[in-house]
């Protein structure tokens, strides 16, 4: 997953730079390895680097009334691949998710992903860069993705693949222009403050095309097969965002309620693992009447530990992030709620710390089903032999992590909490069933 955004302001006197930078900050949770922001106006300039938005974009000296940006969780081999990257000499693109195949193009496995896209686009466009060509090119792409592209005529197209795996929303900026971004929280941070839902969902298979004198919706596909990523609701998206018009916060609370229904246990206190699992824990507590407590305090910068690429970094993140507040747990029976379990070692670390601080019992509840398989659309899931949920039962996991009991949310429970039909969701990482692309 990647956080992408495009800002299109009609009046050329605007500089979209700071809007882009703060907008990317609102998407930082979607990727913390690289940052890229390209500005289009009289000239065209890209600022990109490794690190967080704060570090990479702290001195922004580029100008332009249009911008295209991305934050990504993937380390890059070559700096030019930091998204948004050049699709051709004339076109830049930011993609969230994965294009898995392209009509009339044979994937060349000796090339990097970006190089394959470039090669395919070169064949498709024959050197052209018209906005219609660009739009048609993405129609011919298959997979689970959302994209935003800008050409050399300062025109922008932004759309979602027909499966709708990855989210995308359109926000407005008064009479001045539009904002397209992975999540609606961007509109709250840099858009116009309108007291109703600040953004409109971009429907799967649709794209928005901006030119200097038009902004219009175009439909690329009549396919009604959907595969909305369920992991967006569990973990990826920010709780103040809407994904497919569904408020993430509402889903996270429903998950907490479902956990209380499915695997209730008598205890003295409910504690959520920050940040994602806090709304789960709040709803679990409301539902059961067991009081909720703040169990952890953070040291240093807030980073998303599960996204760190190597094991040591992840543990470092967890230990700094999660210092247990002893008085919240000492002598108590604790229901500890987390969003997901991948390898189980960070969870084991937390349970260990909590027992060390005097927790009498620890009952772990997980706000998602077991992760047993990979994601073909870019969410980084480790190799299958590393996934604890694929190999061990709930009882065994409890023993491994040192908890008194351990329960996942059921697959049905998750589907019901999201509120969409099961056939509209991609639950591949939980059940190995993937949409046909």
């Amino acid at each position, binding site marked *: 997953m990647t956080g992408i955004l495009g800002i299109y302001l009609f009046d050329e006197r605007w500089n979209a730079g*700071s809007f882009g930078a703060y907008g990317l900050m609102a998407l930082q949770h979607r990727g913390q390895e690289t940052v890229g922001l390209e500005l289009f106006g009289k000239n065209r300039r890209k600022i990109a680097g490794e690190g967080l938005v704060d570090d990479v974009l702290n001195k922004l000296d580029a100008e332009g009334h249009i911008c295209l940006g991305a934050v990504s969780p993937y380390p890059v081999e070559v700096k030019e691949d930091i998204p948004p990257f050049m699709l051709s000499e004339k076109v830049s693109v930011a993609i969230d998710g994965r294009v898995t195949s392209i009509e009339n193009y044979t994937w060349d496995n000796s090339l990097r992903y970006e190089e394959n896209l470039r090669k395919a686009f070169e064949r498709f466009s024959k050197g052209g860069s018209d906005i219609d060509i660009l739009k048609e090119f993405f129609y011919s792409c298959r997979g689970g993705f959302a994209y935003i592209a800008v050409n050399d005529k300062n025109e922008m197209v932004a759309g979602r693949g027909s499966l709708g795996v990855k989210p995308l929303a359109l926000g407005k900026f008064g009479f001045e222009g539009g904002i397209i971004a992975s999540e609606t929280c961007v509109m709250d941070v840099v858009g116009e403050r309108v*007291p109703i839902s600040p953004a409109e969902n971009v429907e799967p298979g649709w794209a928005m095309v901006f030119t200097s004198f038009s902004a219009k919706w175009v439909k690329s596909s009549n396919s009604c097969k959907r595969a909305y990523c369920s992991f967006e609701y569990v973990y990826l998206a920010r709780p103040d965002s809407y994904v497919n018009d569904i408020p993430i916060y509402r889903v996270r609370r429903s998950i907490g309620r479902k956990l209380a229904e499915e695997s209730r246990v008598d205890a003295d206190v409910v504690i959520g693992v920050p940040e994602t699992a806090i709304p789960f824990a709040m709803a679990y507590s409301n539902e059961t009447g067991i009081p909720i407590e703040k169990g952890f305090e953070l040291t240093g910068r807030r980073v998303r530990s599960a996204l760190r690429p190597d094991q040591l970094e992840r543990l470092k993140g967890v230990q700094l992030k999660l210092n247990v507040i002893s008085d919240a747990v000492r002598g108590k029976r604790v229901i500890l709620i987390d969003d997901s379990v991948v390898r189980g070692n960070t969870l084991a670390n937390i349970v260990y710390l909590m027992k060390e601080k005097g927790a009498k019992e620890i009952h772990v509840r997980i706000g998602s089903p077991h992760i047993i398989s990979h994601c073909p659309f870019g969410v980084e899931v480790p190799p299958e032999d590393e996934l604890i949920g694929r190999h061990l039962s709930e009882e065994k996991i409890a023993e491994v992590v040192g908890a008194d009991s351990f329960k996942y949310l059921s697959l049905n429970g998750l589907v019901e909490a999201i509120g969409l039909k099961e056939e509209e969701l991609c639950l591949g990482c939980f059940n190995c069933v993937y949409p046909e692309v």
Partner: protein
Amino acid sequence: MKVLLVGGGGREHAIAKAFYRSSYEPRLFCVSELVNPGINRIVKETGGEYYVGNPNDPETVFQAALKAGVDFVFVGPEEPNFRGIPDELEKGDIPCIGANKDVAEIEMSKASMRDLQWKYMIPGRLWYKKFRTFEEAVPYVEEYAESVALKPARQVGGKGVKVIEDFQVYLRDDKKKVKKQHIESIYKDYMKGYEDMDFKILIEERVWGPEYTLQCFTDGRTVVPMPAVQDNKHAFDGDLGPETGGMGSIACGMNLKWGVDDDRAILTEEEIKKSTEIVRMMVEAIQKETGRKYHGFVAGQMMLTSVWGPTIIEMYSRLGDPEALNVLAVLKTDLVEICESIISEKLNSIKVEFEERATVVKAVSPEGYPLSRDLAKGHPVVVDEQEGVFWASAHLKEDGVIETGGSRLIECLGIADTIPEASLIAERLTSKARLADGWGLFHRSDIGSEKSLERRMMLANMAREIYKYRERKGILGKRIIWVPGKGLEEVG
């Protein structure tokens, strides 16, 4: 009976149609710069004449009225009012439906309008500042970071307004820069050539809420409201893009109901009453101020805000375009009768009635409108004319070819029991026009859709909840600010 119509846009085509329906069967004459193909047909059918000329020039209009020997003149747009056309006609004893120069000040000078509203303490008054020069306004913009509407102090064809929401401190510098650039262009570009006013720049507080236009007939004694209409100012679907003269409008009943037999509405009846009272007070105030009678149309371009409830954004001294289409389509009373009762100041003696139907108007414009009108101009037009299609900015040349005028080309009217149904009818009509040279046309497909109506109602409810709270607390319209080190400041 003979009537001279001044102006040649979509609004005037709708007015011409309303006269065409009249049982008095008036012969219709028209004076405008471009030959509107729709008005031209009605003029020809009723045995009138089309004078091509400057509708803003008093002498041209006066001579046309004399030549035609009309019973009265009907002014469509605002600029002829500002230029004193009704005054000139009055001098020559030709009755006129149109605000005279002095009372039309409530539209022409947005600054005087606010002065008047504050002087007479009329509700729904926004906080504002006016400036004579760019240099005078700069220190103000430098010092205060506020969400504002930056406006030319004069009505300049609906252009030049920029609304900048300035809440996020981290984006303040960029916004300040654009604010300054924009007031500079208000001073140097938009107000260029308008020497009829001292004040050039107006800065008003920015407010949010659903907008609506409350158009009224007035003879100076009585103010008779028409159904409230909601215009859509953004150029593109989903309320996106630059401000236009209006890309379409909706109405149903007096208070913007969802449908004829439906309880859902954007406004309450009480809010309509309050809005009408505000417009009536404005008419009274301007007459008192100028000592002159207001004969014609007056409209509050209003917003239901959280600060005030019904609030004046701007005033019109004429019917709105395209809002005129919505109200004239459901006007049951004979327009000639209304005009005569305005002229004789007996508007209170007749009953003005409207049919309760939902109306939706969608404008179709050539690409380039509104920011690059030169690109939008001069394209040959092919239209499959049908009931409900109104000609707007189009010119019928002598060789019979119709060309785009650079603004909205046609306006399509749908009438039904509910707004979403009327929207579908209007939507079908938008496909009746194309440009023979292949240049693109655009319109908004979302106007009057269920989704857009729902959003407007939601917005109205949110504004209503806050202004009702203010009403209960007795602080409606008041801004109470604690200035650290200085104390309590109260505005409003």
